[in-house]
Every structure is written in C-alpha cells, then in structure tokens.
C-alpha cells in the first residue's frame, strides 16, 4: 500500500527532488559567492560590518512566506527566481557571520608573525587567515545549505516546485503520506548535503586526508568533490526544459489556486473544462500560498486565472468598508472594481457560498446551549480560539469580530487551515473559524454557530480571469461559463469530503463529477 503510493509518484518525486536541489544549490552557491568575499571585505570596516550584519539579521527574521510574497511584488514573478533570491538571502547570514568570526578568530600572534615576515594584507588573508578560518567558514556554509534545503520546501507556495510541493499538497488535502513524501526526502537531502560539504572539507585538508585511506592518493582532492558533483548533476538535469510539441502549437492558459482542498478542486475543474472544450494547453500552478500571492501573480500575468471568493475580493483585496450584505451586491461591486482597478474579470459564480463560520464541538454547543455567536459572550474569557493567520490579522477577521460582537477570547493561536479542524476535534482549541463548505464539519461532528450580527460577508466562489485572456480567447470564457451555478454548498462539501476524508485524487474526483453532470 505504502509502496504503491511511492512507486506511483516516483517520477514526480525525482522531478521534485531535482527542483529542490536546484533551488537550494543555486541559492547556497550564490550566498557563498557573495558572502565569503563580502565577509573578507568588511572585516576591518567596523561600521560597514555592523550594517551588513544588521541587514542580514533583519532578513533572517522575516518570515519565509512574507519574504516570498514581498519578492513576488518586487520582481513580479512567481516560480524559481523569487524563490532562489529568498533562499539566497536566508543563506547569507550564516555564511558571512562565520566568515568574519573565522577570520577574526585567528590568534593575534599568528597575524603578528605573518606581518613580521613580510606578508602583504592579501597574503595574510590567503596564506594564513583563510586557511585557518576554513573550518568555521565551512560550518557556516553547511548551516546555510541545510537552512536552504529546509526553507526550499516553502518555495512551493510561489509555484517554484521542489519537495515542498508534496508537503503543501499534503497539508491542503490533510494527507499525511503526501507530507512525508516531501518531508523525508528533504531531510535525507539535508543530511547528504552536509556530508558532501564535509567530504570536501576533508579532501582539501592535507592533514585530515592522510587519515582517510580512500583520499590518501594524489587524486584524493578530486575524489572528495564527488558527492557534491553527484548532487550537482542530479540538480542540473532538473533544469532541462521538458519540451512538449503541444506547447508551441496550442495556446496556453495558466491556472493558479490557493493552498486548500476546495481551491484545488475548483482550479482543476476550470483547467479540465478548458482542456475539454477548447483543446488549449493548460498549465497548473496550484497550491500558491494565499490570497496575496495569487492576486499578485494574476496582476503580473504569471497566472491567467484562479478561483476567488467575493468576500475575500471585497475585504482582503479591495479593502472596502462598504456595508454590503447580499451576495448580489458584493458580486456586482467586486466585478466593477476589479475591472476598473486591475483589468480583471469576475466570471459567473460556481453557485455556493463558502463563508467563514465559527465552529465548536457539537457536544460543547449542546452542553452550553450555544446556538449563535453572541451566546459565547459569557464564556469567551475561558475559551481558546484557533484561527488561520490570515483571519487573526485581517481587519474583517478577528479584530472586526471583536468590535462587532464585543467578544474577546481568552487565548488566540494561529493554526494552519489544514490543522485547525483536528485541533478542535481533539479539544486543543475550543473554537475555530471554519469554512462553511469544509467536509470536516459533518465529518468531525462540529457545530456551526449562527452569525447573528451578520458580521461575515458572503463568500461566493467564482473564477477571476485576466481580461486580456478572455478578450483574446472568448472560448475560454464560454467554457468556464459551463461551471456557473453548478455547485451548491452541499455538493461542494461532498467533493471536499471525497478529497479530505476519502483521500481520493483531485483529478479523479473532478473527472467523476463531470461525468455525472455530463460535461464530458
């Protein structure tokens, strides 16, 4: 069973591993090429050094996802370029720090001796300081490489591939096997990278080489590079572009999605209906890390469309404070504003409203007589809430809720959307912001509290598309129109259930659904 799971995914596993190597290898290499010379340069320049260290330190504290989102805005690209830049920035600090520490750690009497015998500053660095600092510098490079391999798993959030693709998908679909399929190889990779770098360290050190039989000969120096060369060769093959003849002949549309089950299903539906009805080539850049990244990618033309919710467009993107309540008003407003501000078009909605909803355990609701959100007022102080990071922060999320209901929970923690249902079920939190179409609401026996102050706007799902694309290819709009009003809340909950609870492949679920609706 587990074996089948891996064998089935072996080709993708190899592809993702190569991508992962490319991401972490190029970024670590770049960080070494910049960090080591810069470290040498700043060693005697106190203010410049503090500046560089301060900057590198600040960069290190920027959360990875925020960094990726920021770079996406700055460079206007998703994919490997911003990912490599982000990883390089992270790898930079340990390298420059260890370079400087290593160079400064050389005992003063050795510097005095080298100065006294007539070495120039450059010779002191080349012949004495660098060789003596080398173990410390190499340790820094090792740290950087391991950080890089680790953080590279997040690159999947901006469509850069790598082993994070599995982890990301596994988290979206709450599939532990997929998470492990990404996490285990990346852990092995980190260990191997550390080994490869140590091998070179030994190979370059004549004294250590004498102790290892294999490296003793004159070819020992070269031999020690082999583990790294193997990595490099594997990585470089990931860069060979896959040439499909269909690509050049047929127009291509690129579809994105956020990183949770429903988005994956909707995006796959959009992709499939376009493929069937137009014969276009569809590129899927799914599982991007959140609304910001999808929206930016759409604006920059990195993707052509993705499924979005009207309420999210209204509040998170347009940051509107208009007091709309009906789904029609909201849809009309976001359609108009998106076209005016961004040249983006909202196509007809899929037919369901996936609003935020406060969910509690059914037995807790029964015991305390909770029916609606205001019923929580008395107990709020003793309740522990688990919210998505986005909800905790957005003005229309928890801060707005506090104002509208005058309720503040005793403790609030941020949870990944994939984990919060489990946390609630297991009693680790008492209340979460569920999505009303999530399959785990019936699955985990949860109860949705009524939003009695109409705090949450409607969140009707619909494809958002670049205007340029549908003007150029009207057939795309025609194809997507077939999905309008096709899915109600129950249906969506059912489709999510198939993926989340029954662990079925999204493609298969969509294929089956289309068959049922005679869309084939």
């Amino acid at each position, binding site marked *: 069973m587990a074996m089948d799971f891996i064998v089935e995914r072996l080709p993708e596993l190899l592809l993702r591993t190569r991508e992962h190597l490319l991401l972490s290898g190029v970024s670590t290499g770049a960080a070494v090429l910049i960090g080591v010379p810069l470290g040498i340069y700043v060693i005697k320049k106190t203010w410049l050094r503090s500046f560089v260290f301060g900057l590198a330190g600040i960069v290190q504290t920027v959360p990875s996802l925020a960094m990726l989102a920021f770079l996406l805005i700055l460079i206007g690209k998703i994919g490997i370029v911003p990912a490599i830049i982000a990883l390089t920035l992270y790898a930079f600090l340990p390298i420059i720090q260890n370079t400087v520490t290593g160079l400064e750690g050389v005992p003063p*009497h050795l510097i*005095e*001796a080298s*100065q006294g*015998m*007539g070495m120039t500053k450059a010779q002191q660095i080349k012949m004495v300081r660098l060789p*003596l600092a080398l173990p410390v510098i190499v340790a820094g490079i090792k740290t950087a490489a391991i950080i890089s391999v680790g953080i590279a798993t997040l690159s999947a959030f901006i469509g850069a591939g790598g082993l994070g693709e599995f982890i990301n998908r596994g988290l979206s679909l709450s599939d532990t096997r997929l998470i492990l399929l990404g996490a285990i190889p990346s852990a092995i990779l980190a260990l191997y990278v550390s080994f490869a770098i140590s091998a070179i360290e030994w190979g370059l050190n*004549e*004294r250590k080489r004498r102790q290892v039989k294999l490296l003793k000969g004159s070819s020992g120096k070269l031999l020690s590079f082999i583990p790294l060369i193997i990595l490099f060769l594997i990585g470089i093959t990931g860069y060979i572009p896959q040439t499909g003849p269909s690509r050049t002949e047929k127009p291509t549309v690129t579809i994105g999605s956020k990183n949770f089950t429903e988005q994956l299903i909707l995006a796959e539906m959009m992709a499939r209906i376009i493929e069937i009805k137009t014969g276009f080539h569809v590129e899927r850049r799914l599982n991007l890390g959140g609304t910001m990244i999808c929206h930016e990618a759409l604006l920059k033309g990195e993707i052509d469309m993705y499924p979005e919710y009207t309420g999210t467009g209204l509040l998170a993107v347009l940051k509107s404070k208009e007091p709309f309540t009906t789904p029609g008003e909201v849809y009309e407003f976001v359609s108009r504003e998106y076209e005016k501000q961004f040249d983006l078009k909202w196509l007809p909605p899929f037919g369901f409203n996936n609003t935020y909803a406060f969910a509690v355990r059914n037995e807790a609701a029964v015991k305390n007589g909770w029916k609606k959100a205001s019923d929580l007022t008395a107990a709020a102080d003793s309740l522990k809430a688990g919210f998505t990071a986005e909800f905790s922060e957005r003005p229309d999320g928890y801060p707005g809720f506090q104002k509208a209901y005058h309720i503040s929970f005793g403790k609030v923690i941020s949870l990944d959307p994939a984990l919060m249902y489990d946390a609630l079920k297991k009693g680790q939190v008492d209340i979460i912001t569920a999505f009303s179409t999530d399959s785990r609401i019936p699955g985990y026996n949860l109860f949705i509290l009524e939003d009695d102050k109409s705090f949450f706007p409607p969140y009707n799902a619909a494809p958002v598309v670049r205007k340029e694309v549908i003007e150029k290819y009207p057939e795309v709009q025609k194809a997507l129109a077939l999905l309008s009003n096709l899915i109600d809340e129950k249906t969506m909950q059912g489709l999510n259930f198939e993926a989340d609870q029954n662990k079925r492949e999204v493609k298969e679920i969509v294929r089956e659904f289309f068959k049922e609706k005679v869309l084939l």
Partner: protein
Amino acid sequence: MIKLIDINKSFTPDVQVIRDLSLEIHGGETLVLLGSSGCGKTTILKMINRIIEPSSGTVLIEGKNILEQDPIEVRRSIGYVIQEIGLFPHMNIEANVSVVLNLKGRPEEERKRRANEVLELVGLDPEQFSSRYPDELSGGQQQRIGVARALAANPSLLLMDEPFSAVDAVTRELLQLELLKLKKQLSKTIVFVTHDIFEAFTLADRIAILHEGRLQQVGTKEEIISSPETEFVEKLLMKPKKQLSAFQGLM
C-alpha cells in the same frame, strides 16, 4: 649597521612610550635590549622592521631610511622571531620554514633545499621533521623551527623578541647555548629583547638598558658592571649580586 636617531613614540597623546632615544647597532654584533615589561623594548624592536613607525625620528639600516622604503620589502629582508613563535598550524614544518622564500617567489627546489639546511642548522633532522605539523612538536622544538624560519631567507639581521621566555629553564639554557653557537657560525647582526638579566649577559656583545621609554645605558657587560650610569642600572645589578651573595652564604 642600524641607527636609531632621536626616536619618540606615543600611541595616545598623553602616554609617551619612547623618549628621545638614539642608538647604534653595529654590524655582526648581538645587541640585547634589556628592561622590564612596558619599558618600550619591543616597540623599539618593531620599529626596526617597520611594524611600528616612530612618531618622530629616523631609522637607518645600512644608511638607508627605512621609513622611505616599502615596509613589505624591509620585513622580508629581516629575520623575525617572537615569543609565541607563531608557527602556522595548518602548514607542515617544511612549509613553515620556507614561507619567506615562498613570499619571495623562490622555486620549490630551492625552498626545499634551504629548508633542509636551516633545519639541520638548528639541530633538527629534516627527514624526521619536514612533514610534521607544529602541534606534534615540543615547545623547544617549535622555537627552534621559529629560529630556522627566520634564518631561511638568509637575512643579515635577526630580530628576536623574548624568544625563549615561554620554554622551561633547562630548554631555555640549551637554546641560549645553541644561539651562541649559531651566532659564531653565521655572523649575523642580532637584536635580542629580554627582561632576563642573566639571559642578557649570556648572549650579548653589548647591552642597551631601557627604563620607562628612556635609554639608560649602552655598553659591554664589563662596562655596565664596572660603571653603571644611572640609578636604575645600579638597582638592576643589585638583584644578581644579592642572589650571588645569598648563594655564597649557603655554600
């Protein structure tokens, strides 16, 4: 010949380390700079190979003002031995000894030959020691390598900054005797810094005594013992005299 003329040196405006110092060091002689720590003897030594520059005054070597010469070239032409030895731990003994020749761009064959010569000169078997590393050697052996390294490029001038003070008394005496032997064999000019009056009297042709940045007296051992010129020098000589009489009393 080395001439130090009217040397003054301050590291900070209110602390003057060397005051109005003039000193001649003759070719081929061993001159010992003697004084307690902080008296400025190391500072003077380091002015000779331009690691430290005087605030005012002139340093002449063979009539040439070294302050007008490339410091790197000046240092490469002078042998330099320090108390901490400063052997490079990542280089084997041969590489350590021939490092100055390497800096001067001499071919490998010459470096190897010369390394063997100087190792033999300081009494270490090249075959046994060439490929070892500094931390595999005893303190005395390391200091011999330090001397060998300073001699490798065959400089006519050798600066030694308390080279034997970190080794045990027995080894120190052995190294002193070997240095005396080397001195006769090689006829180099040696400037030797020490705070140990016995070491000074063992090694010196002439002794220059320093106190608080001022030169107290320069002369041969006999001159200094027979006619100490300052109160400090007199006090300095009291110590061995006292020790001697105490020792005789015991006998």
